[in-house]
């Protein structure tokens, strides 16, 4: 989505449910985004029930994307169906995964020739009972800023796994809320990010654990270099009635430069006693014993640091399900690691032999 006329400010978006001292400037982000007037146009909107899906970046962003996207895309996966072909979610998309079905939903823009001003998407997913939903989110496209909001509600026994790769240059603001409403619903979330040069990353993860015996496993890890600024807010909300539930969140950040600003706010909210919540964060450079292990195998310190960046792209490429996403990730890998390493990634993973989709 790209428009270049009027601009508006989305003030204090991507907020967590519980906030802290404002002077720390870690509660939210304010974005200036294009706002093309659509007065007089009528677009296809999602069914109203998607309004109930809480999205990570909050209502202001939802409203803005809805006002800017053309037709909303509604996709339904019928009960019991195992859908092999991934669902490509762009702009404003709502996916209904009916009971017992399995689906893969891919969020990430296709490569474009010229750089965009703003890339944005709003994806809402309703996963009914006994579903298995894989969500793959790639933010690597060529744009000045990236605004991506995702909301998922999960019914009983639903298995949700989300893998996020935030690799783009510029400003990335991304929010994800997963509501584990049904008993025994489960979320596994892995988020990998890279911040370099003057990149800005603002990530908000919220897990609402409402059902009994729900499980949430959230893991973020990233590499920050140059003058990158990152804020991660991760909230585990153990709501009254979620007895027997467990929520765990863990972030590890590798800081490679003194000019990096790394902000982390891992929150647990809890009003239920029969639950277990824990979170952890470790922030710093590569541990001495890890450096030594890598040196013993022949890597200098600089090479060890570069390895962490390469690893991010290796993982993203392995996970990339479509040729379009692969191209996007590869273009970014070329910019970050150089063409030689990028080609090596592709050949090593056998992607050059794979049939292009």
């Amino acid at each position, binding site marked *: 989505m790209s428009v270049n006329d009027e601009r508006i400010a989305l003030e204090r978006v991507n907020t967590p449910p519980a906030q802290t001292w404002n002077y*720390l400037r870690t509660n939210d982000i304010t974005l200036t985004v294009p706002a093309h007037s659509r007065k007089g146009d009528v677009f296809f909107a999602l069914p109203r029930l998607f309004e109930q899906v809480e999205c990570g970046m909050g209502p202001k962003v939802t409203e803005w994307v809805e006002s800017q996207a053309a037709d909303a895309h509604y996709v339904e996966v019928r009960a019991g169906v195992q859908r092999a072909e991934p669902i490509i979610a762009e702009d404003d998309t709502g996916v209904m995964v009916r009971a017992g079905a399995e689906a893969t939903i891919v969020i990430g823009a296709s490569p474009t020739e010229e750089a965009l001003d703003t890339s944005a998407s709003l994806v809402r997913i309703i996963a009914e009972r006994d579903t298995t939903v894989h969500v793959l989110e790639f933010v690597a496209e060529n744009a000045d800023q990236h605004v991506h909001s995702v909301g998922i509600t999960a019914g009983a026994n639903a298995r949700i796994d989300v893998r996020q790769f935030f690799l783009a240059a510029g400003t990335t603001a991304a929010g994800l809320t997963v509501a584990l409403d049904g008993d025994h619903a489960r979320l596994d979330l892995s988020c990998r990010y890279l911040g370099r040069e003057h990149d800005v990353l603002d990530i908000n993860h919220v897990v609402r654990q409402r059902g009994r015996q729900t499980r949430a496993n959230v893991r973020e890890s990233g590499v920050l270099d140059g003058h990158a600024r990152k804020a991660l807010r991760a909230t585990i909300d153990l709501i009254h009635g979620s007895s027997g539930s467990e929520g765990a969140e863990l972030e590890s950040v590798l800081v490679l430069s003194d000019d990096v*600003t790394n902000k982390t706010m891992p929150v647990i909210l809890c009003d239920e006693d029969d639950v277990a919540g824990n979170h952890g964060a*470790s922030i710093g450079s590569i541990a001495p014993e890890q450096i030594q292990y890598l040196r013993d195998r022949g890597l200098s310190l600089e090479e060890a640091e570069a390895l962490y960046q390469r690893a991010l792209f290796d993982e993203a490429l392995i996970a990339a399900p479509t040729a379009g996403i692969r191209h996007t990730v590869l273009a970014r890998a070329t910019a970050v690691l150089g063409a030689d390493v990028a080609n090596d990634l592709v050949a090593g993973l056998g992607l050059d032999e794979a049939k292009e989709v």
Partner: protein
Amino acid sequence: MSERTKKRTQVADVDRSLYDFTYSEEGYERYDDGLTPDIVRAISEKKDEPEWMLNMRLAALDTYHAKEMASNWGPSIAGLDMDHISTYVSPRTKQAKSWDDVPDDIKNTFERLGIPEAERESLAGVGAQYDSEIVYHNMREEVAKEGVVYTTIEDALHDPQWEPIVHEYFGTLIPPADHKFAALHYAVWSGGSFVYVPAGVTVDYPLQSYFRLNAEGAGQFEHTLIIVEEGANLHFIEGCSAPKYYEANLHAGAVELFVKDGARLRYSTIENWSKNMYNLNTKRARVGADAKMEWVSGSFGSHVSYLYPTTILQGDRSSCEFSGITFAGATQDLDTGCKVILNGANTTATVDTKSISKDGGCNTFRSSVVVGRRAANARCSVSCQSLMLDDISRSDTIPAMDVRNATASVGHEATIGRISDDTVLYLMSRGCSEAEARTMVVGGFANPVSKELPLEYAVEMNNLIKLEMEGAIG
């Protein structure tokens, strides 16, 4: 799930009967409720202050009126109406150096709180504040001989030797514009302590100040200023309590601690305000090179607390340790934690906090760790554990970290849960009754903090978390 695992631990509420007694304030000097420049002038005039102090008060009052409360903050303080709070209440008595000279009702109050006894047995000096004024202040002779000063700020301001020192330090670490209630504090502050420990002096026994708020609908705004010079060593204890009223009381004290190079300060607090108290207290320490700051903090009382002692590790190789426990029972909403700012190279900070929530009480652990660009090799670890004793209570953990140095290492871990059934079963399999097992677990949970307290306070704390275990309820 078996019946046994559904049982919940019965922990009696903190027993406040010890603190819940009042004496008439008949004949006391009580200023009108509300906040006006006239009241501020009256307080200043009564204290016969230097002009700079009056000016500071009046400027702070303007700041107070100008500052907004943040709208996205935790516990509500809607029940606090400054138009119904008297900012100054004073018993008509002179500050005494001997308990015999303290009026009977006030003396009885402190006797019941065990202060004179503790002074005889284990303290180097005691200050006792009743409502807005210090009523008793004394320090052992041998400590005074070493050049240690322990007095009120009011007295220090009247001493030509110390007035310039107070002027130099007062309000510099916590500026009046820091936040709305800091501004309020500076407008109407009264009482508190001034401590000066000369370079190289180790005070062998702790000094203790005790703050008692007896009056209903009143505020207490004591100011504590402690300067520990290079290589000196001090343990300072602060206790506070009040009887329960229905009208809101307010405590907005300020504690400024200057820990110079190579010095060491331990600051212990047992706070047991009554459940009509808004405890909006500000504490801050600045720590010099190779110096060490230790905080031990037990928060049991008050209706609403905002309490986040701050440590600024300014000097290289300085360090701090923070141990805290907060117990929130029925009607309590306690937002507590700490802030650490690591500015010096090779600084280290360790934060270890515990919270217990029961009977609908609400605990919020809130912290911030900021590592500056200059803080090469800084190390900070934060550990926060919360125990939920029933399913109507609440426990939130809201830490924030801001790291700007590549060689710094910051770790954080937090857990929330209830007493593990496995642990109880294990202890029962070794012959403990279930009640004993649960008592043991809660006691063990609080132990890392209580063991940091002086013995008589540890005993008091264990009495506070008086554990009365019952059988099943389900």
